[in-house]
C-alpha cells in the first residue's frame, strides 16, 4: 500500500538558501513521526511543502497519494493542520471557531465533544485572544481535528502547554493514531517526541541526519563509527549479530554490549585495517539528537553528513 506521506529527493530553495536538501522520507498510514531539528534545519519548510504552502524546487512530495498543490482540493478534506501560533480569529470564541470550521467539512466532529475531549468546555465562550497559551494550543489542535483528518500536521503541539494539557494532547494524538490517522509532529522537545512518536526523523541543515524508531534511536544496540562502506554482512558473521550501516560511517549492532562483542569488533576492524571511532551502547533521544546536531553543526554546510557523532562510552 502506498505510504501516507512520501518525500522523494525534495529540495526547496529560498533564493540562494537551500532550506531542504535532497530529503527523502516516507511515513506509513497510522504512523506518528516526530520531525526534530534545530532552528533553520528545514522542518517548517518541509512541512509547509507537504501542506501545499510551498512548491518543491526539485523532487516531489505526496500526501495520501495527492500532490499537495495540484490536487489540493482533494487533500484538504482529509488533512488537519495545527500551526505553531495563531491561525484563529482573535475575537472568536473556541465554540464559534469550531462551529465555523465544522461547516467547511461534510462529516465534521461535534464542536462540543471536541471541547470536552480537550478540556476546553470552561473556556468555550471566551474569546481566543483572552485564552492562555496552552488553551490556544488546544483550540488549535481541536480545529485540526474537527474535519476527522486522516493525516495530521502538528507544529509544536505542546509548546507552552501545562502538564495537564500535555497529557490531554498526547492522549488525543495516541487516539488519532489508533484510528489510523497519520501524524507528523514538528517539535524541538525531545520529551514530546519520545512520548508521542513511533519514529523520529532528525533534520539538520535541510538534510535527513537520522531516522528511526524510538527503540532504534534510544534503545538497545551498540553504535560505533568507522570508515563508511564496511562489509556489514561479514562483520555480522564475525560477531554473530545483525549489523547495519545507518548512515555512511555509522553502524549499529543489534545486540547488547559486552566485552566479548567489543573485543570481536575491534579484532574484525583491525583485520580490515579500519579504525574504530566512538562506541556506545544505547542512548536517550536527547543524547542522540545532541550527538547528531552538535557534531554536524561543526561541519561545513556543503559536506555530506557522514562524519562522527559524539557518543558515550560505557
Amino acid at each position: 500500500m502506498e505510504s501516507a506521506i512520501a518525500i522523494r529527493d525534495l529540495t526547496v530553495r529560498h533564493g540562494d538558501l537551500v532550506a531542504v536538501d535532497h530529503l527523502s522520507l516516507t511515513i506509513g498510514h497510522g504512523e506518528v513521526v516526530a520531525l526534530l531539528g534545530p532552528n533553520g534545519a528545514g522542518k517548517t519548510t518541509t512541512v509547509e511543502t507537504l501542506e501545499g504552502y510551498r512548491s518543491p524546487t526539485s523532487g516531489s512530495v505526496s500526501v495520501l497519494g495527492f500532490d499537495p498543490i495540484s490536487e489540493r482540493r482533494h487533500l484538504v478534506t482529509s488533512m488537519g493542520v495545527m500551526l505553531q501560533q495563531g491561525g484563529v480569529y482573535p475575537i472568536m470564541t473556541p465554540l464559534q471557531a469550531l462551529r465555523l470550521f465544522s461547516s467547511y467539512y461534510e462529516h465534521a466532529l461535534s464542536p462540543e465533544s471536541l471541547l470536552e475531549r480537550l478540556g476546553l468546555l470552561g473556556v468555550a465562550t471566551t474569546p481566543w485572544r483572552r485564552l492562555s497559551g496552552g488553551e490556544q494550543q488546544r483550540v488549535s489542535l481541536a480545529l485540526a481535528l474537527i474535519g476527522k483528518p486522516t493525516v495530521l500536521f502538528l507544529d509544536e503541539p505542546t509548546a507552552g502547554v501545562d502538564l495537564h494539557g500535555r497529557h490531554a494532547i498526547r492522549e488525543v494524538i495516541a487516539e488519532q493514531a489508533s484510528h489510523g490517522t497519520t501524524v507528523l509532529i514538528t517539535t524541538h522537545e525531545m520529551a514530546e517526541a519520545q512520548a508521542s512518536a513511533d519514529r523520529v526523523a532528525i533534520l539538520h541543515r535541510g538534510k535527513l541526519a537520522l531516522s528511526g524508531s524510538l527503540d532504534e534511536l534510544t534503545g538497545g544496540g551498540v553504535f560505533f563509527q568507522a570508515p563508511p562502506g564496511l562489509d556489514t554482512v561479514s562483520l555480522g558473521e564475525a560477531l554473530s549479530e545483525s549489523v547495519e550501516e545507518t548512515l555512511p560511517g555509522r553502524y549499529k549492532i543489534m545486540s547488547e554490549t559486552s566485552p566479548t562483542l567489543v573485543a570481536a569488533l575491534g579484532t574484525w576492524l583491525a583485520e580490515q585495517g579500519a579504525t574504530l571511532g566512538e562506541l556506545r551502547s544505547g542512548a536517550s533521544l536527547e543524547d542522540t539528537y545532541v550527538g547528531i546536531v552538535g557534531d554536524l553543526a561543526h561541519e561545513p554546510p556543503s559536506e555530506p553528513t557522514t562524519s562522527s557523532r559524539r557518543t558515550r562510552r560505557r
Partner: protein
Amino acid sequence: MRALRAQVVAEITMTLRRGETLLLTLGIPLLLLVFFSEVKIVSSETARPVDVVTPGILALAIMSTSMVSLGIATGFERGYGVLKRLGSTPLGTSRLLGAKIIATLLIEVLQGALIVVVGLALGWKPSGGLMGGMVAVVACIVGSVAFGGIGLFLAGRLRAEVNLAAANGLYLVFLLLGGMVVPVRILPTGLRVVAEVLPAAALSSVIRDAIGATSAYSGSWIVLLAWFVIAPVAAAFTFRFQGD
C-alpha cells in the same frame, strides 16, 4: 454552500463587533453627513449642502468598508495566521474571497440605506430618477471593487501594523482629496489634477452626477474603471496568504 454561508455570517459578525470598524464605516460617515449638511461649507450656487454632501458620503462609506475595513481586517488575519490556517481547509480561496465580497457588499447596503435615510431626513432631494439610482448603484459596485483591490493590495504585502497605518493614512488623503466632503473644484490646481486621478474623487463625482446636484468632471468614469481593473489585478498578483 453551507461553508460559504457560515463564512459570510462570520465575516459580518466580526466586522460589526469591531468597535473601530463601526466608527469608521458608520459613525464617521453619518457624523460628516450631518455636520456638512448643516454647515454651509460645500454648497454651490445651485445646490444645498445636503444635496452635495450625501452622494459624497455614500462614496466615503464605500471607501471605508471596501478599502479600510476589509484591508485592515485582512491584514491582521494574514498576520495572525488565519489565512494560512484557512488555506488548509476545504473552504478554499474562492469561497473565502466570495464570503468577503458578499459580506462587504451587504455591509455597504446597510451603510447606504442608513446614509440615504439620514440624508432624506436632513432634506436631501436626490436627482436623476430611477436611472440615476441605478447608475449610482453600479458606480458603488465598481468603486467597491476598486477600493477593495487597494485594501487587499496593501493587506497582502504589508505587515499588519504598517497596513493599518497605511490604510488609515490613505483614508485621510482620499477623504480630503476625494471630493467627498471638500469639492475637488475648490482645490488648488496642482492638487486638483492629482485628486482627479484618484478613485475617491472619481467615485464621488460619478455618484454625485447620477443622484446628486453637480455633474461629473470629464474622465471620472474612465478613472474609476481604470482603478476597478488595476487595483484587484495588482492585489491578485501580489497578495501573500502567509504572514511575515
